[in-house]
C-alpha cells in the first residue's frame, strides 16, 4: 500500500471542483437551515435546476454562456418561489416534506421519456461545456502545482469554482452580520416573536430560500462542468443528505463551516477508499471486494458523522456556546 499516494489523493480532494460544488451547495443550506431555520431537504433539486437550466438553453438554442447562466439562475429563483409560496406560511417541517418531494419531482420530470429531446431522459445531456472552456485563459499544457499536475481545463475549472465559492462566502458573511442577518436568525429562533416586532417574516424567509437556492443552482453548474455531462441519477435525495453531512461536519451556523465540511467529507471518502482498496489489493482484507468497499466508505462517513454529533455537535467551526442552550 502506498500511503503517500493515498494521502496525496485525499489532499487533492480538498481542491476538486466537485468539492467546491458541495461547499457552495452546503453554504446554501447554511443560509436555509443554519441561519434561517428552513429545513430544505431538496437542495439536490436546486442543483439539478441549475445544471439543467444551464445545459438545456446551451444545447437547445445555442445560448451563450452568460444567457445560459442567467436562465439557470432565474429558473432557480422561480423554483424557490414556487416552493416557498405555499409552504413558508406553514410550520418548518412542512417545508421539509415539500422540498424533498419537489426535488424528486424535478428528477422524475427530467427523466421522462417524453422529454428526451430536451432533457436527454435518463442519459442526461452532454457537450454543453464548450462555451465555458472557450473562455479558458490558460494555455494548453500541464501545470504542476506542488505534487499535483493539472491540465489547462482542470486548472480553469478549479480557479473559477473556488473563486465563486470565495465570493459566495464573502457575500453570505456580509449578509449574516448585517441587520438582515439578524432578522433571519431571529426567525430561526422564533418567527412569531420576530413578527410581533414588525418584521415581514414571510418575505425574509422567501429571500433566504431564494439566496440559498441560487447558491445550490450555481453549485449544480459547477458540479456538471468538469464532467461535461448532466445526469439525473446524480441529483437523487442522497446528494441532499451528503450536503447536510458536509454542513453538519463544518458547523451549520457558520460561513466557512460548509466549505471545510465539504473538504473533510471528500477527503475522508478518498482516504477510506484508498485504504480499503489498498488493503484488499495487498490481501489484508479478503472478505470484501472493491465494490463493497466503495459502499462501506459511505457507512464509515455515516459513523464519522455520528461520532461528530456525539463528541463535537457544533461541527468543526461551530460555536459550542450556541449549542449549550439547544
Amino acid at each position: 500500500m502506498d500511503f503517500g499516494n493515498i494521502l496525496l489523493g485525499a489532499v487533492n480532494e480538498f481542491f476538486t471542483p466537485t468539492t467546491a460544488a458541495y461547499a457552495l451547495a452546503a453554504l446554501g443550506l447554511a443560509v436555509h437551515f443554519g441561519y434561517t431555520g428552513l429545513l430544505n431537504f431538496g437542495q439536490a433539486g436546486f442543483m439539478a435546476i441549475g445544471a439543467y437550466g444551464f445545459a438545456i438553453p446551451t444545447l437547445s438554442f445555442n445560448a451563450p454562456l452568460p444567457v445560459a447562466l442567467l436562465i439557470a439562475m432565474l429558473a432557480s429563483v422561480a423554483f424557490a418561489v414556487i416552493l416557498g409560496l405555499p409552504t413558508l406560511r406553514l410550520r418548518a417541517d412542512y417545508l421539509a416534506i415539500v422540498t424533498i418531494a419537489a426535488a424528486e419531482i424535478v428528477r422524475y420530470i427530467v427523466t421522462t421519456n417524453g422529454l428526451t429531446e430536451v432533457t436527454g431522459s435518463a442519459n442526461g445531456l452532454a457537450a454543453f461545456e464548450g462555451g465555458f472552456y472557450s473562455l479558458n485563459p490558460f494555455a494548453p499544457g500541464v501545470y504542476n502545482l506542488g505534487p499535483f499536475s493539472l491540465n489547462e481545463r482542470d486548472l480553469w475549472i478549479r480557479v473559477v469554482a473556488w473563486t465563486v465559492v470565495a465570493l459566495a462566502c464573502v457575500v453570505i458573511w456580509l449578509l449574516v452580520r448585517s441587520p438582515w442577518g439578524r432578522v433571519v436568525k431571529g426567525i430561526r429562533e422564533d418567527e412569531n416573536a420576530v413578527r410581533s416586532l414588525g418584521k415581514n417574516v414571510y418575505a425574509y424567509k422567501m429571500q433566504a430560500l431564494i439566496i440559498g437556492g441560487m447558491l445550490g443552482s450555481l453549485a449544480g453548474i459547477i458540479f456538471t462542468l468538469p464532467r461535461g455531462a448532466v445526469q439525473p441519477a446524480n441529483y437523487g435525495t442522497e446528494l441532499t443528505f451528503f450536503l447536510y453531512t458536509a454542513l453538519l461536519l463544518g458547523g451549520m451556523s457558520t460561513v466557512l463551516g460548509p466549505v471545510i465540511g465539504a473538504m473533510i467529507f471528500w477527503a475522508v471518502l478518498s482516504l477510506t477508499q484508498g485504504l480499503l482498496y489498498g488493503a484488499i489489493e495487498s490481501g489484508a482484507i479478503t472478505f470484501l471486494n472493491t465494490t463493497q468497499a466503495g459502499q462501506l466508505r459511505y457507512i464509515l462517513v455515516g459513523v464519522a458523522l455520528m461520532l461528530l454529533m456525539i463528541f463535537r455537535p457544533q461541527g468543526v467551526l461551530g460555536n459550542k456556546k450556541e449549542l449549550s442552550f439547544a
Partner: protein
Amino acid sequence: MSHQAQSPQPGRRPGAHAAEPAPETAVESVPSSHEESWAANKYMTDDRPIAADTAAPGCRKRDPILIASNVTRTYGGINAVDVEHVEIPRNKITALIGPNGAGKTTLFNLLTGFDTPQSGEWRFEDRDLAGVSAYKVARLGMVRTFQLTKVMGKLTVLENMRLGANEQPGEALRRALFRPLWKKRENEITEQADALLAKFKLDTKRSDYAASLSGGQRKLLEMARALMVNPKLVMLDEPMAGVNPALTQSLLDHIKNLKAEGMTVLFVEHDMHMVRHIADWVIVMAEGKVVAEGPPGEVMKDQAVIDAYLGAHHDVDLGDSEGFEKLEAVLEKDPESDIQGGESLAPVIIEERKDTA
C-alpha cells in the same frame, strides 16, 4: 406565584392592603424613586373619568385608542371569544382579567393579527385592522408580548434588543451588504438598546445569549425589546407569570413608567395584587365575553366578578396565620361553607397551611 414565600418587601403582599379601601393607596406603601417624577407627569396625574358614561361592560371611553366590536372566534363550536364591544382607553393602564379559558389571550391574538376572527371589526387609532397582518399591526405601534416568553435564545441580549428596532435600512436585503448604509442607524439603535437595558437592569447581561437568562429576566427582556419598537400601545400577556417577588416591584414600576412616557398599556394578568396596584381600568372576561368593566376598586367589589373569578374569600391573605384565622372566622359565617361538617377538608387544609405559614 406563591404567597407563602417570604417576601423581601413587606407591604407587597396582597393581604397587606386588602383591607384598604382604594387600590391607589397601595402605591403609597411602597417607596419608589419614581414617585416624585410621576407626581408632575401629566399622564400620571390625569384623573379625568375614563368612561364616557357610566362604567358597564362594553361602555364607551372618553378617549379610546383601540375599539373592537362584535369580534368572535370559535374553535370547533366553542366560542373562544365573543366580544360585543370593548374600548381600551388611551394613556391608561388597562388590565384584562378573567378565569383560565376566558379568551383573554385569544382576544390578544385577534387584536394583534396573530389570529383571524370569524367576524367583527376592530380599529386602532381609527385605522381598520381587519385583515392587517401581525407585522403591520406592530409597525402601526401596537406591540405585544407573549404568555410563554419568546426570546431569541441563540442571539445575545443586545441582538434581541436591536431586533426590536424599526427603520433599520440594513434589514432590507438590497442594503444589507453595504455597511455604510446602515451603520449610523445601527449606532442609534445600540444606544437606545443600551439605555433600555440599563433601565431594566439587564446591562450586565448585554453580550450573553438570551437563552442563559432566567425566566424573570426573559420577561424583562421581552418587555424591553417590545419598547424598542417605540409602540403606542403595549400589550403584555401575563407579564408577572413566573417572575420572582423581588422582581415584581421593578416590573410594576416599569409598567407604570410606560404610562408616564405616554404609552397605553393593556395587560393580561392573574395576579390580583398587580391589577389593583397599577391598573387604571379593569376589563373582566368570562367565557369569551366581557362581563364587567370599571376602575379596579369597583370591579373587584362586583358580585359577578367575585363569583366568576376572584372567589368569595379573595381578600383573605393566606400568607400568615392571621389570615387563616380570619378565613376560618369568615367561613364559619358562610352558609355555603361546611366548616363544622366532618366531610369537609377545608379545616384540615387550613390547619396545615397555618403551620407552614
